[in-house]
């Protein structure tokens, strides 16, 4: 391996690692606030990527049906539980919003509005799926054990996977790059897309940091994560905190999907594997540490890109094997890591 190949692999690893880091952050955050391990995160990645790719062809993406359907179901579920209070707000969030997004999409899609608008539309269509999913599947179980929540999460993953096949079909597609520019750095060529990915992930991470550190809402979410009862005793509604955490995860998951779409062909189920790599990183961070998760995500990205070079057939195997020594080390260090509150 010469230096230029090394640099290419390094660059690949960092770019993929950045996307895994975004997903890992979401997993850690959602788990901290709601104790849900967000397996359907991967579906959001796929759906955003495929929606983006469809929009670029000038067609109206069928994921609008999913948006409307899930929104409607979330409305019915929440309206049932709420017995008539604050229904108006709920209707705006779960019925009017998807209708608005659908309207704008149907109007804009045939005009091929350009990459920037398509990205925003894909985010708008995909991101709300996460809070709807929360209302539908997780809020009613808010007080259940971590295990029950995990089962619900696996269920949501399978259901969305099936719907994904129905909506997008088995064919894969690839979204357009944000930029066709090629920067040369010495004798190394850096595609503009890589810079977009790094720039947007860093911006998203900085945004998350500022939100959690300096806003009352972000602090409240952290409070729910460290002490649920304490948070309730000051009047913070934990289900609202969960809804916000899922919304953030929806936005970042969709962003990851849109970012990854130009790099590789995405199928309706590709997101699961991508999400799983974020999950590996989140586990290394103990589902608790944000910096560790980001660092681990970079390592996962690098391990993946270098093993793709040396032993491409075993790429995934190597990546997922990395987690075993980490798990062993963790189980030796904390004998009592059963986080059942």
């Amino acid at each position, binding site marked *: 391996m010469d230096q230029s190949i090394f640099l290419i692999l390094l660059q690949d690893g960092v770019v993929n690692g950045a996307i895994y880091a975004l997903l890992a952050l979401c997993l850690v955050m959602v788990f901290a606030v709601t104790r849900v391990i967000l397996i359907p995160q991967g579906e959001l990645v796929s759906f955003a990527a495929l929606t983006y790719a469809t929009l670029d062809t000038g067609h109206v993406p069928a994921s609008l049906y999913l948006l409307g359907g899930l929104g409607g179901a979330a409305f019915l579920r929440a309206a049932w539980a709420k017995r008539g209070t604050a229904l108006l707000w709920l209707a705006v969030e779960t019925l009017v919003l998807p209708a608005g997004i659908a309207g704008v999409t149907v109007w804009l899609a045939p005009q091929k509005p350009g990459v920037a608008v398509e990205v925003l539309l894909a985010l708008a269509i995909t991101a709300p799926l996460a809070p709807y999913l929360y209302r539908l599947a997780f809020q009613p179980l808010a007080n259940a054990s971590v295990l029950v929540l995990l089962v619900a999460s696996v269920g949501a993953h399978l259901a969305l996977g099936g719907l994904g096949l129905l909506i997008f079909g088995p064919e894969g597609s690839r979204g357009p790059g944000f930029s066709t520019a090629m920067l040369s750095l010495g004798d190394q060529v850096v595609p503009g897309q890589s810079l977009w990915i790094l720039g947007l992930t860093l911006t998203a991470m900085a945004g998350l940091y500022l939100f959690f550190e300096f806003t009352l809402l972000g602090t409240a979410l952290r409070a729910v994560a460290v002490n649920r009862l304490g948070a309730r*005793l000051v009047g913070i509604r934990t289900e609202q905190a969960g809804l916000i955490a899922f919304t953030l995860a929806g936005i970042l998951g969709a962003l990851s999907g849109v970012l990854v779409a130009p790099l590789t062909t995405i199928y309706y189920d590709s997101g699961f594997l991508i999400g799983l790599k974020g999950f590996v990183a989140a586990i290394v961070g103990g589902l608790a540490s944000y910096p560790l998760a980001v660092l681990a995500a970079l390592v996962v990205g690098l391990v993946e890109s270098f093993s793709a070079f040396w032993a491409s057939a075993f790429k995934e195997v190597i990546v997922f094997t990395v987690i075993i020594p980490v798990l062993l080390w963790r189980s030796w260090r904390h004998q009592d890591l059963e986080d059942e509150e």
Partner: protein
Amino acid sequence: MTLLDVRHLSVAFGGIQAVSDVALRMAHGQIVTVIGPNGAGKTTLLSAIAGIIPASGSVTFGGVDLARHTVESRVAGGLSLVPEKRELFAGMTVAENLRLGGWRLRAQGFRAATRAMDECYALFPRLAERRGQRAGTLSGGERQMLAMARALMAKPTLLMLDEPSLGLAPLIVRDIFRTIRALRETGVSILLVEQNARAALAISDYGYVLEGGRIALEGDGAALAADPRIVEMYLGTAAR
């Protein structure tokens, strides 16, 4: 005017009756104490009134039936609990804990919360010195002060305190009780659960004795403190 009216309140844990048919009333501006031995159901009673655990019977607060109200909406309605375990946000600073205590004031803007924080610092000067310190590193007394201050940030009408003097040094206990009395002067009503019966009854308008989950005795604070049965069971032997 009745502020809190608890009727036929019962709580059962897996078939064991922790609180049975308790009736409790208190008026605006009162300090009311519930004393009783360990395991009498005092904490359970407060938890049920706060809405943390489900209970049968009725709890009416300021004329509103709380049956369908969650913990959070009870706090929003002016009913705050400082639990025995304090339940602070350990990894966060004193200031952040207080800021979150003012969650209920968030619609009134940053200023209102800051003003409320200054009031808390005036009430507990120790907290002002420690405002940048993490809650988990505070001493027991400071934690209790922070827990009370955090609850006061929500501007409660009724503050429920579960064993505020538990595990604290005598000097700090004296401070805490002095603060409780000062709070009443500012219009906050207080429902107090205490092991330290002597100190609690001394500042109370009315008291209840809870034994085996039932109200065994009730009366004016001074009358209870003089009652020979109370003296024998809670005051005489407890040479604290």
